[in-house]
């Protein structure tokens, strides 16, 4: 029997076996008393150009068929249970029957698929939409008042703990106008070294604010700065030509 085997033509070993059973025109249950299993083993063993990945399943089936064949020749081993569910012959016949039904259903499904593919849908329209509408829920005067009460409680709580609001702290710490006033006050008595302006451990915020205050005073012409050389201390002096000092 000339049979050129292409593993890609079959959906695995069960498909090939069913194909052979179909050719032999026998019932699935008669597979072992027919030539089909021998044919299968011959086809698989003769095919040389088989991809190992695909071949493994075909070869495994060939091994199962050989096992079944050897069992039919040898007397059953004494340990073997007589549970028919556990003998490879019944297992294989069952699997073949299962798979045959699965193929039958697949063919029916293919018809459904074909019919459904004749239903054409349409692409969504590019529909111009108005701006999205937002509906606010849970808006009540009670809610509004509750929000207020919460806020007030937070406020009062802070006052009770003696915590001044953040803004007052910022006010006391660093502000350009405040530092301007301070520089002017300190230079009243004479010249002042730039480094003396800073506190012992000045924060970045303090340095920046002080420097801005200094630049502002220079711009306003209220201060003069001098330096002996590039590495020397910067010295600040009140600009005496300035008629009206900032602080009175």
């Amino acid at each position, binding site marked *: 029997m000339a049979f050129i085997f292409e593993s890609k033509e079959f959906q695995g070993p069960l498909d090939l076996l069913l194909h052979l059973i179909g050719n032999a025109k026998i019932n699935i249950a008669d597979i072992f008393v027919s030539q089909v299993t021998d044919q299968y083993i011959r086809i698989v063993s003769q095919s040389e150009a088989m991809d190992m990945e695909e071949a493994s399943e075909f070869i495994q089936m060939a091994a199962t068929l050989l096992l079944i064949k050897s069992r039919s020749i040898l007397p059953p081993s004494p340990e073997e249970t007589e549970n028919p569910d556990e003998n490879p012959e019944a297992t294989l016949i069952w699997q073949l029957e299962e798979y045959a039904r699965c193929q039958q259903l697949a063919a029916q499904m293919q018809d459904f698929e074909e019919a459904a593919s004749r239903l*054409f*849908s*349409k*692409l969504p*329209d590019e*529909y111009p*939409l*108005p701006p*999205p*509408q*937002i*509906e*606010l*829920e*849970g*808006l*009540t*005067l009670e*809610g*509004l*008042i*509750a*929000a*207020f*009460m*919460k*806020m*007030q409680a937070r*406020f*009062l709580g802070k006052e009770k703990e003696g915590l001044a*609001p*953040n*803004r*007052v702290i*910022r*006010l006391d710490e660093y*502000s350009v*106008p*405040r530092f301007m006033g301070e520089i002017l006050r300190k230079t009243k008595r004479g010249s002042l070294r730039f480094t003396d302006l800073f506190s012992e451990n000045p924060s970045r915020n303090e340095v920046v604010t002080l420097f801005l205050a200094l630049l502002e005073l220079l711009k306003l012409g209220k201060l003069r700065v001098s330096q002996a050389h590039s590495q020397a201390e910067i010295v600040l002096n009140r600009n005496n030509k300035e008629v009206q000092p900032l602080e009175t």
Partner: protein
Amino acid sequence: MKHERLCGIIESILFVCGDDIQLQTLADALGHTIETITEAVDELEQAYLHDSRGLMLKRFNDRLQLVSKSDYATYVERVLQPVQRQSLSQSALETLVIVAYRQPITRQEVEAIRGVKCDYSLQSLSNKGLIADVGRKETLGRPILYATTDDFLSHFGLRTLKDLPELPANFPNTDNSVQLSMEIEQA
């Protein structure tokens, strides 16, 4: 109807096509004269007038397109763009209380009372149409002034701003706050 089946076929083609199509193209493909096609299209157009139909024909020159019926546009929009339901966050509510009682008010003034940045909540209230930009304060930087809108009144079931509940005691006074914030800036 004289051309029942032809009407159905044309509807089918126009539906799948989506775009406009020439009468001549239909005539050629279906093996009919332009006159027959035109008759069928007229019948189709007539049938679409019925309330139970959601489609209509757009005809221009010798072209034809199936489109949705304009009468039902609002319903289409309702499905394509459902109304979004949202509620206000605590911080948005607080900001709204302040704007409601102290309008018109600038962002800086609201922040002075709440003690935190309010750009985001003002923006969100503004997007929701509860407050609006009503001008600029004639002061340094000319900051934007916010006030509540008519939508605000309707959302809270108020007829006028006078219907707002009486101000509970100790409500932070804006003028004070403004003063404070000015001090910060000018100190």
